[in-house]
């Protein structure tokens, strides 16, 4: 079943085609999501949401980009939505603590240990993930896709609907910012 046939069958509501799509792309979606949200449970929740969105909006896919590019786009968008809602929850909890009696617990994200990182690099990777969390959204997406999904700048530019030079600039700024954050932490 090639990509075109798969899309046609998905548009016809073929359940077997949907199962095939999920089996093909589930690891890609889960990996991308876990890199951004830095939590396995949230990543699975996002992966489910991504496939539900695909199922419901496949008729809007015009085939102007590769199917994987479209799926990456949906995944990063869903993951960033979760990160944003988590941040607003954190802000709200801070305000509650400020104006409350001070006993409300602060919503803190624990250190994230990526299961795919070599054992001797776990601690360093956890520090890096903590720093990645502080990056602006577009730098976070570019860096995560490049490092975790091993995508080229061309592929990232297709996903982010931008130019290759813009991705290069994003990556450069991401590395600069990460250095600053990590130096501050180390110093």
């Amino acid at each position, binding site marked *: 079943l090639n990509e075109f046939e798969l899309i046609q069958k998905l548009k016809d509501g073929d359940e077997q085609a949907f199962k095939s799509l999920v089996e093909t792309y589930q690891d890609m979606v889960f990996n991308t999501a876990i890199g951004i949200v830095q939590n396995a449970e949230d990543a699975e929740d996002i992966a489910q949401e991504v496939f539900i969105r695909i199922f419901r909006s496949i008729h809007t896919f015009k085939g102007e980009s590769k199917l994987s590019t479209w799926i990456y786009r949906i995944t990063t968008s869903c993951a960033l939505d979760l990160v944003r809602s988590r941040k607003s929850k954190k802000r709200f909890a801070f305000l509650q603590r400020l104006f409350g009696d001070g006993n409300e617990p602060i919503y803190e994200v624990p250190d994230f240990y990526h299961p*795919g990182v070599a054992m001797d690099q776990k601690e360093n990777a956890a520090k890096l993930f903590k720093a990645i969390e502080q990056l602006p959204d577009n730098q976070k997406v570019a860096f995560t896709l490049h490092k975790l999904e091993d995508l080229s700048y061309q592929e990232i530019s297709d996903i982010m609907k931008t130019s290759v030079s813009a991705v290069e600039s994003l990556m450069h700024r991401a590395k600069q910012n990460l250095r600053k954050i990590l*130096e501050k932490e180390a110093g």
Partner: protein
Amino acid sequence: MYMKKETNRKVEEILDSLNGVKRISTPDFFYTRLKARLDKGMEPRRSANPVLRPAYAIGILALIITFNVISLIKHDKTAMPTASAPSDSENTQSIASAYQLDDNSVYDLNLEK
């Protein structure tokens, strides 16, 4: 100088810690859970109806207020008496005379009975 070099080395080491990271697999029975959620038609993080977003709500409210103000101004203009137009009492008089209600005829009729 040594400290700065050491910090730089540490930072570079951290930055390189994701090199060679392995892709992880989705948890087991992912499709089963996904299918159950699809069948249930349940979405925990359903995106809010765009019409309920504050920007839309404020826009719609502003539009309603504008329409109200415009209709109020228009109503005021039409209600304002002009020199050529007859006043309310003149109108009442002409209607009353047209239906012969200007000379207490109702009472006269009752008296005749």
